[in-house]
């Protein structure tokens, strides 16, 4: 990925890729960081409404999704080890598990949002605007934006994982050139990291 088109040097530099990925993760952290600032301010301004609104969310689904992400984080972390042990099959299997868990997470999310929609709660919906207090409107606004953006990151993460798996399959990513897989892993952990904060902030603080 990092080669110059017309200079056929071997430019592979695992550490450079790793720093690059970390730096990118920093920007992602601050992207969500902005949202966390918004969340904290509004939580501070409307404590009661936020409590009330959080009760509308289903803690069980949230908890299940948390565990799912944690497990998937472990599987992808393990896959970096298996790759080093030159176990291509195991690596691919672990990635497959990770992908499946990611998809299950999204399906859960889909149903969770679906339930909200069927109750007439979505950003700007009439039910929300008419029957809820301002704090609750903000809560749900942030809920949809933050979990939505998180879901978008899951999708991006899945795409990266699939590309990595394909390259492992073809052998261009291997124990000597593992950067892509490690970066896919880092990205996936980032997604996990963000969820670790989203979960208590939205589901638990009732």
């Amino acid at each position, binding site marked *: 990925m990092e080669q110059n088109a017309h200079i056929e040097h071997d430019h592979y530099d695992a550490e450079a890729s790793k720093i690059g990925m970390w730096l990118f993760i920093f920007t992602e952290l601050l992207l969500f*960081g902005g949202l966390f*600032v918004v969340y904290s301010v509004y939580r501070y301004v409307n404590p009661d409404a936020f409590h009330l609104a959080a009760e509308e969310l289903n803690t069980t689904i949230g908890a299940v999704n*948390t565990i799912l992400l944690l497990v998937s984080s472990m599987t992808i*972390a393990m896959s*970096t080890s298996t790759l080093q042990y030159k176990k291509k099959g195991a690596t691919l299997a672990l990635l497959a598990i990770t992908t499946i868990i990611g998809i299950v997470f999204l399906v859960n999310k889909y149903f969770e949002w679906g339930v909200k929609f069927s109750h007439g709660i979505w950003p700007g919906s009439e039910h929300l605007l008419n029957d809820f207090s301002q704090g609750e409107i903000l809560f749900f606004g942030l809920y949809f934006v933050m979990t939505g953006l998180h879901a978008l990151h899951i999708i991006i993460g899945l795409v990266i994982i699939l590309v990595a798996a394909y390259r492992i399959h073809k052998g261009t990513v291997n124990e000597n050139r593992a950067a892509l897989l490690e970066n896919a892993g880092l990205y996936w952990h980032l997604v996990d990291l963000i969820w670790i904060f989203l979960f*208590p902030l939205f589901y*638990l*603080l009732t």
Partner: protein
Amino acid sequence: MSEEKHHIVPYRVYVIVLMALIVLTFASIAITEIELGAYTVAGALLFAGIKSYLVLTYFMHLKYDKKYIVAMVAFVFAIFVVVLVITFLDYLYR
């Protein structure tokens, strides 16, 4: 461009960390069930903090990385916290 020697993390470590994370998840659910008033938020964040520390050090390999990467990560989190605190200088004293 020398080959960086990789530290291969044994599976066992990952499994232990995962267990710890799951336990912490349930612990944070439990603690928020209890009525602690303002401390609920603090409690939940504390657990989330510990969890993210585990993810960062083990899953994201910071433990085995060069120190300057760790420093960068710490710096970024610090900046975020500082920005949050400063923003609250406005809201706390309005």
